[in-house]
């Protein structure tokens, strides 16, 4: 399962272009505390969150996440988008809630 497959199956929007969308997805992590993701996150997970500031990109990069999925239609500003693109971090977006997205992603990865 790649990021691109997840995007298609869950109807997500890709905010950062095509870089990284063929990356593998091995799991997910949900939460809005960056320190939690730093401590518990693992490579190739998709991180579902409502946080969209610059530090989110740094955390995604450090942990080696497959992508960050912004729930509730959260939209990062231009500076954060630019940072994500230059760091090769995939930012995805959906209007659905984190709860909905977690359930659907979990089902997708475990079916």
């Amino acid at each position, binding site marked *: 399962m790649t990021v691109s497959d997840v995007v298609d199956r869950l109807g997500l929007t890709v905010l950062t272009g095509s870089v990284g969308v063929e990356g593998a997805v091995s799991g997910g992590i949900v939460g809005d505390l*960056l*320190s939690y993701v*730093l*401590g518990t996150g693992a490579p190739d997970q998709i991180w579902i969150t409502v946080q969209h*500031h610059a530090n989110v990109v740094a955390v995604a*990069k*450090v942990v080696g996440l497959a992508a960050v999925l912004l729930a509730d239609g959260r939209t990062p500003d231009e500076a954060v988008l630019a940072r994500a693109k230059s760091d090769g971090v995939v930012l995805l977006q959906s209007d659905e809630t984190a709860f909905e997205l977690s359930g659907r992603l979990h089902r997708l990865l475990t079916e």
Partner: protein
Amino acid sequence: MSPRLIVNASRARRIDLIAVTDHNSAAMTTAVAEAAAEAGLAFLYGMELQTREEVHLLAYFDDCEACAALSRAVYELLPDRPNEPAYFGDQVCVDIDETILRSEPKLLVNSLDLGFDEAVRLVRSHGGLPVPAHVDRETYGLIAQLGFVPEGLVFDLVEVVSGVLPDGFGSAVAVCSSDAHDPSQIGRRTTVFEMNDCTVDEMVRAARGVGGRSVACCPGEWRMK
């Protein structure tokens, strides 16, 4: 952000009193204190704690050793996650001449294993003044992270970015600081204290309006002429 550069930038912008409040560490305060003393600039020791809930709390001290003791206590509450210099910088500690003394191996930009209430108590138990940082900011501010101001906590000073203190802080007074992460940011926000000396006790008296002392925020961006 070397010690003399911080001091010189502060003096150039006509700042009379500075504090250094690094993230979860007071390791650099002694070198900046030395540079400040050299230049006749008043100095307070300090740190900025990041709690489990990702709230930022400033701590100010008159006394070097008391601040250092809090720094040691905080270090034990930092997770063992190592720093990654490529993403977070080298976390170097330098002396007044910018000689690198060491690099901190643990990631400092992390949350302590400490709740907000506990963090306030920890600062006070070490003799420091706890000041919630940038409470009106979306990221790492008390209100954004906890939803609202918790009951039962009393502060004399609360730091804001906007200059306006949000509801819920009782009789506390707003302060503004540069929160400079870069020399160009030094002096971008300041506070004018009318007080008799540059100490934490005098800041508290000013917050309480004792004997005509006062506190006034200057939240506006400082501009280069």
